[in-house]
């Protein structure tokens, strides 16, 4: 890495390829924020690698003026792991979708998370298969009518954050395509975390699942529906009225703040608490609860690539640089 952090503008991260998403697709906004964030991370451009699977979302690398690899469906974590453990100095970003990352690729994602390879995963969740023209996905709500489910889907969806936590993730976040500033902040935080940062990004597919997140992203209601999670901050939200979360045994409870209740009566977010993260991941905006975004969970654990490199270095210290002649002549040899 160069010692003098380079000065970039967003446009330095824009590639010359024509963007092939549908006009109005939420992917545009995400792309724009990522380009901005990359330009501000203080790293040389050539150290960024964006690796994706297959899907509309997975077209992402083509539009980033960095190194990029558009691989095969569901397997981006494998490629990224092989790259990162051999080239730990690179900044590796995986882009995946709810189909790519949770349908065909769920296992690789889970193993990436338990290994805690130091890279960042952005899962664009539009709750639909975009590229294949609109079949329901593993995050689609039950009863979803699509071409493949004319009577409605019957599978209970995954909760991506619960899945990540259950797989042993060390850093779990959520943001939303249209929350530009929040998304940028979230990606900044992902970059900072050592280990796998898992960022679910709600993304509107205006062609096959338009408005999937309107209930809480619409400007009119946003402030009353979204809870911005920050470590050490009380969990309160609301514009017209103020609400807060409290703990009732092992359940969360919504309370209205006012005369006798204020922020100080609300639960303070502890992002290192996995149980709390699990409970927050469950909230989906129903029953008066908010939809939380931001940092759900973050703990430090040794990274896989770190330990991988350390073992190689330790072997070299203990055994010296390998001597090929010695290696071949190891064990029983004889002369003829």
């Amino acid at each position, binding site marked *: 890495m160069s010692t003098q952090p380079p000065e970039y503008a967003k446009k330095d991260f824009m590639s010359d390829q024509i963007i092939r998403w549908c006009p109005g697709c939420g992917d545009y906004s995400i792309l724009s924020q990522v380009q901005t964030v990359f330009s501000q991370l203080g790293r040389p451009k050539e*150290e960024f690698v964006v690796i994706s699977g297959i899907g509309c979302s997975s077209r992402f690398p083509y539009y980033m003026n960095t190194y990029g*690899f558009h691989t095969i469906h569901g*397997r981006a974590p494998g490629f990224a792991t092989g790259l990162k453990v*051999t080239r730990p100095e690179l900044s590796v970003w995986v882009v995946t979708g709810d189909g790519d990352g949770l349908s065909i690729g769920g296992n*690789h994602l889970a193993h990436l998370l338990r290994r805690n390879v130091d890279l960042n995963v952005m899962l664009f969740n539009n709750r639909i298969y975009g590229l294949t023209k609109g079949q329901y996905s593993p995050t689609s709500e039950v009863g979803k009518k699509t071409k493949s489910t004319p009577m409605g889907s019957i599978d209970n969806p995954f909760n991506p954050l619960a899945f990540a936590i259950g797989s042993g993730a060390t850093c779990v976040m959520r943001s939303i395509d249209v929350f530009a500033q929040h998304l940028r902040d979230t990606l900044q935080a992902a970059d900072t975390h050592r280990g796998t940062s898992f960022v679910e990004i709600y993304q509107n597919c205006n062609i096959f699942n338009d408005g999937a997140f309107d209930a809480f992203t619409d400007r009119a209601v946003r402030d009353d529906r979204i809870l911005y999670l920050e470590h050490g901050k009380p969990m309160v939200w609301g514009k017209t009225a103020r609400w807060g979360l409290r703990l009732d045994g092992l359940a969360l409870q919504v309370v209205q703040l006012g005369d006798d209740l204020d922020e100080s009566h609300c639960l303070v977010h502890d992002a290192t608490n996995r149980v709390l993260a699990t409970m927050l991941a469950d909230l989906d905006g129903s029953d008066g609860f908010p939809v939380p975004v931001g940092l759900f969970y973050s703990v430090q654990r040794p990274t896989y690539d770190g330990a991988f490199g350390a073992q190689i270095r330790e072997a070299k210290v203990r055994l010296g640089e*390998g001597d090929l002649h010695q290696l071949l002549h190891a064990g029983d040899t004889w002369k003829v």
Partner: protein
Amino acid sequence: MNQADTKNLEQVVIRFAGDSGDGMQVVGSQFTRTSALVGNDLATLPDFPAEIRAPAGTREGVSGFQIQLADHQIFTPGDQADALVALNAAALVTNLGAVRPGGIVIVNTDKFAKLDLDKARLSSNPLEDGTLDGYRVIRAPISTMTKDAVEPLGLKTKEADRCKNFYCLGVVYWLYGRPLDATEAWVRRKFKSPYLEANLAALHAGHAWAETSELFQNHYAIPSASLPSGDYRNITGNMGIALGLAAAAVKSGATVFYGSYPITPASDILHNLAPFKHFGVATFQAEDEIAAVCAAIGASYGGAIGVTGTSGPGLALKAEAVGLALTAELPLVIVDVQRAGPSTGLPTKTEQSDLMQAMYGRNGESPVAVIAASRPNDTFEVALEAVRLSVKYRTPVILLSDGYIANGAEPWTLPDIHAIPRIPIDYAKAEEAETFQPYARDPETLARPWAVPGTPGLEHRIGGLEKQDRTGNVSYDPANHQKMCELRAEKILRMRADIPPTQVHGSADGTLLIGWGSTFGAIRTVTDQLLADGHRIAHVHLRHLNPLPGDLGDVLSRYERVLVPELNLGQLVRLLRDLYLVDARPISKIQGQPFFTSELRARVVAAMA
């Protein structure tokens, strides 16, 4: 003192058989080492049970080891054993068929009680029911004698019994005039007191008993072979590949990244490589075969030499990713240690039935290079060759080995490491940024630049979609697609420049036996026998299967008859017929076992009639 004469033998085949827990593989490898050290040529065949630990004493639990040694060059572990050591009833009945009529059979009479016979599913005692008629049978209470020998050392009964493999080894060492010192030294290195002393005691006791018991009519000597001079060691195929990959790391200066998911019979490559970290070898046990190959490709993308290893079912799973590597035009070596299929098949048994899968088992027009090892002692070279081709041409190379090569051992002449050519790694450089095009090509090899992340100014995007020639941008242009498909195919054909002229062993016309992989030994032996008998016959053994050598068509055209012995239902034969329109005929065997020389000879002779 036993007055037995010493007879010289040109070659001999010996088989050890006992329960999995009896240490037969140790006996086999000690016998191998000692024979190698005295200068015999040799070849071995271990025969493991499929189960991890089948119940002791059952037929399923029998573990065997066969070795052929000779005073001349040999290529196979032999068809039939001249001598068998059988440590229990199950081992006797399951291995007797492998002994030639009149052969020596040394049996541990302590393991023929009713219970032992039951476990071996025998209704009568083979020691008594005539089963052994026609063999030279040496009955020995090996368990008891071992117990007596180690008694002074105070081991528990079970532990004492474990020494009986060394007792047997002592017997056989005497019988075939082998020195004890190498094994003694090994025992001293390997064991701690009191097991060290106990094993040595058993070894010596067995040797002494054989010498004094007067049960043996003769003992034998096998003079040393006049092998090419050099330093030798024994090598299995799985170790040879591991060493070859380590050498590739050293000779290239690049990291060799081995991503793998365990599978029989390939797992040992991973095990062998894992301790080579200080050679620049990185190993990664992935969650499945797909992740393993993808990680290897990711490593190649970053400038390492990505390698993945598996067996047939795993190769099937890797197909899609191999397709990506070939269109991304990145180096990738895929080792397939073949086993008997289809599906799970006979996982511990050998077969050559993945050639067509290696050639064609991917969607679209997806040519890759295919090369094959033919014996444990060429695996080192073949692994280096796979890396070399893959790096030079930036394309996947499938290396075919098989269970027989993987686990079999034979002496290997250690190469002079300085004579091994460097593997040049030519990453694209920042200085080329001005003119850089990700899909420009080297005019000779058609390789594209290897532009690794981290190189300033070479930022670019690649992927599985069709790419425009030179720029690498996604392109749906019809003519471009045709061009790229042809370029990828042509790149493989260009490798012909790296293939040495085809070596023909034998006559210049008549019948040609053409093979690949682990049938080498059987085919070569049969060829030599038939040549000696005055037949016009020759042997060509292919290392490069895709592309085939440029001169192969000419070679084939010189022979009246082309026969293709394979351990499958006919695969190489299809390629030859297709490409050269020669009426090549298969000689197929698909039984989870190598060809016996005698069997192959008979079939070749029949085909020549």
